[in-house]
């Protein structure tokens, strides 16, 4: 049996949502429901048309957008197509992203029936005021409902996404969100500092109202609170923004961070195979047209150099608590390395380079120094 994250993965993108969240800069559309059937067809044909790999895959991640915004039958047919076309390990991880309000009992049953064993729920916050600031609309209580339905359907792997450091949040309200998460007993949690991405409605709001800009110092404190609260409940931080109960790390995401390979399907999806990086066209209609025309719906691709590979390993690998093989990120400037280790930000032991707990909040700066 392979370790999680060692076998290649498959990423499938569903670029549809009921409503776009203000902070989101992913490829997704909230006004193209009529395009869904054609898109699902194209996606399946794209998967069927791929005969490039005879590898044994260890994970599937259906992300979005909101995959569970699709009719359950569409989702299950995509999953069936994957199963027909590729080989998977027996214990393969099958994750679908969901928004709490889209998880009906029917959806939960359909997912479980199709073999989905992990659902990642976008909870973001349990504080309604924060949800309003973020431009989210769901009722915090819907998270528990969704978790219950998924469990009832037999899906064991459950993860929540939370966002911290939103203006208006307090230390206490952040603790409450963490407590509510722990009460739900999920085995995985992703906690992200609110990031203002350019070209989002949130960025426009920040320009008009600078008080909406998140504060780095505040976010640093909230990150520390998350670490304290979660570790006290046996949730271990295995990546900058990810915590898991023992044995419940996300195998698919580990593939990214450990420098593994994955195939990509769907509008705007990025794939990585060996030294090749490729990405699909973002527009779902164009994606569908290209597939229908028998064309590879690529927007771009590149073959990376050894140095580019090194940079990728550095910026991805150091995010993991387990760190990165030193040989993957050589050559390193010894003086810089010494300064960072002496400064208590980095460890360099037995051929592995890892961030210390103090180094994690400033991982970006450490990575830039080592780049």
């Amino acid at each position, binding site marked *: 049996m392979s370790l999680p994250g060692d076998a290649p993965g498959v990423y499938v993108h569903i670029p549809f949502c009921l409503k776009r969240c203000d902070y989101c800069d992913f490829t997704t559309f909230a006004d193209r429901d009529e395009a869904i059937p054609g898109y699902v067809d194209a996606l399946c044909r794209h998967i069927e048309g791929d005969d490039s790999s005879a590898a044994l895959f260890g994970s599937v991640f259906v992300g979005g957008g909101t995959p569970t915004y699709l009719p359950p039958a569409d989702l299950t047919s995509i999953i069936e197509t994957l199963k027909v076309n590729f080989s998977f390990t027996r214990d393969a991880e099958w994750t679908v992203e969901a928004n709490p309000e889209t998880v009906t009992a029917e959806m939960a049953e359909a997912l479980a029936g199709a073999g989905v064993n992990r659902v990642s729920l976008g909870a973001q916050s349990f504080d309604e005021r924060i949800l309003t600031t973020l431009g989210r609309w769901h009722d915090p209580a819907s998270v528990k409902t969704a978790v219950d339905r998924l469990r009832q359907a037999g899906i064991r792997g459950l993860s929540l996404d939370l966002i911290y450091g939103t203006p208006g949040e307090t230390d206490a309200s952040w603790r409450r969100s963490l407590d509510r998460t722990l009460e739900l007993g999920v085995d995985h949690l992703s906690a992200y500092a609110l*990031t203002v991405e350019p070209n989002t409605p949130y960025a426009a709001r920040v320009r008009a109202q600078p008080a909406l800009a998140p504060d*780095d110092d505040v976010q640093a404190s909230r990150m520390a609170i998350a670490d304290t609260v979660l570790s006290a409940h046996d949730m271990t931080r295995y990546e900058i923004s990810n915590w898991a109960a023992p044995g419940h790390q996300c195998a698919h995401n580990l593939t990214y961070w450990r420098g593994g390979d994955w195939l990509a399907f769907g509008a705007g999806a990025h794939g990585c195979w060996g030294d090749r990086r490729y990405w699909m066209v973002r527009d779902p209609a164009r994606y569908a047209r290209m597939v229908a025309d028998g064309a590879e719906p690529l927007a771009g691709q590149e073959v990376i150099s050894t140095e580019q590979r090194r*940079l990728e390993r550095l910026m991805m690998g150091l995010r993991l608590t387990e760190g990165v093989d030193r040989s993957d990120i050589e050559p390193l400037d010894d003086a810089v390395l010494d300064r960072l280790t002496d400064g208590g930000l980095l460890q360099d032991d037995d051929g592995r380079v890892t961030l210390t707990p103090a180094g994690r*909040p400033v991982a970006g700066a450490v*990575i830039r120094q080592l780049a």
Partner: protein
Amino acid sequence: MAYSLHRIRNFAIIAHVDHGKSTLADRMLQVTELVDARQMRDQYLDKMDIERERGITIKAQAVRMPFKTPQGEYLLNLIDTPGHVDFSYEVSRAMNACEGAILLVDAAQGMEAQTIANLYLAVDAGLEVIPVLNKIDLPAARPEAVAEEICALLGGDPGDILQVSAKTGVGVPQVLDRIVERVPPPGGDPDAPTRALIFDSIFDAYRGVIVYARVMQGRLRPGDRIRMMATGFEGVIDELGVTSPEAIPIDELGPGEVGYLTAAIKGVGEAKVGDTITLAGKHAAPAPLPGYREPTPMVFSGLYPVDSADFPDLRDALDKLQLNDASFTFEPETSVALGFGFRAGFLGLLHMEIIGERLDREFNIPLVTTAPNVAYGVELQDGSRQRVSNPADLPDPSRIEAINEPTVDAMIYTPSEYVGAVMQLCEKRRGTMLKMDYLTEERVELRYNLPLAEIVFDFFDRLKSSTRGYASLDYDPAESQTADLVKVDVLLNGEAVDAFSSIVHRDKAYEYGKSMVGKLKELIPRQMFDVPIQAAIGSKIISRETVKARRKDVLAKCYGGDVSRKRKLLEKQKEGKKKMKSVGTVEIPQEAFVAALSLGED
């Protein structure tokens, strides 16, 4: 054709920037039929792009214009002078090559300090001054009032002043007639030992240095072996000519004539403005023409390549500029913060700006330029003396007996309603009033002695802003004075950053230190540790701020879809890191350095 002396008129045009000097020159070229309308372009005589764009003349030019009158043909030589305070020595040499000057004044703007200063130079050189009002077609023109102003300075009858529109050409022929009528013809014995005054020299990549000169006595011919009396350069004239308006070779230049020559001269440093050309050997003149002065740099600044790999290119570029500009000096220096660079000396601020722009434009080398400063004479306690043109080089205060700073006599010409504001500004800049004259009820001439250091930094901008743009400034070097000066160092994380050191008056040290520290606090990005910023005089800290350590600096999300984009960002950051300047372990982006050095006082 050869002209007898009484048919020759040599004249200059004195005017403030934008008062229409180049346009008037353009019209003269047309009236004398040297250039027809088809060939005409604006600012015909200004050859450098930078001159045309900024509407200023940097290099002097001479143009020979045959002018037909009912009384016969005259030869008019227009010597176009540079028009800025930094070049007043060059202007004075050009004036010495003339017998007359047109004082060209914008009928809307009136007199300006620079015009008055140059007018005094003309009067000192004994020139016949012909006042002319320009832009009389403008709705805002007030010819009567401006004519009064001129007569208050020059004497004479306001009704006698010529009125022109250089733009339309109205009145320009009358100006030429008056030059013929009023400017005295040159004198000079053609058989006396040759003496010719160099009023400009320019470097030409193909022909070497082209020297512009006015023969005062004797003759110059191609093949003559000549000698520059100040620099000692000797060479043989291989081309002698006149500009009319294109270069035309001729066989001889006699007394009163103006022309150019080439003689395999490698750099303008061998043919400096104000030097006297004579013949080499036994026909040499016994003494040079009076008035030669070595160019003295007044303002200094460090020039550092943004990318240290450009250092050799910068050296080449500076060498090339120096071939073309003898008044610009430079020597290598090293800065802990900025690496290898040069300390360059300039005649003044405009000169500095022009060199900076030419480096950027002609050589395309991105530069960090340190804040301008002046040169100090330092007397040490052991009786020795030092000249300090880089504040970082000032010896320890305990060894210093006295520091002398250069001063200037400044003339400020302002509408009377702003006199109070100007006086306030000058007092704040440690000025001593020398004189105040009401030229008319509305126009005041103020004279101040000011430390040069106080005007090299944004004085002109302040003057303009406190007089709504109406005041103008001119200055001449004056005696140096002993002053209570101290060096303020700026320390980052305990280490002095040489590029930020400045010599200031003790009374202003605290203010300077506080403003520098405050500025840097805004400009230096947060690092992984606290960075104290201090201003100090010697070991005494006078101001302190801290850039708090950055507590969070990490991407919240980095998944498969982010890899390519974020890697490209990292590649860019890695490239950008090369442009970071490190002071100890503090990394400062280039832009922060530039911003800190270029901001004026608040």
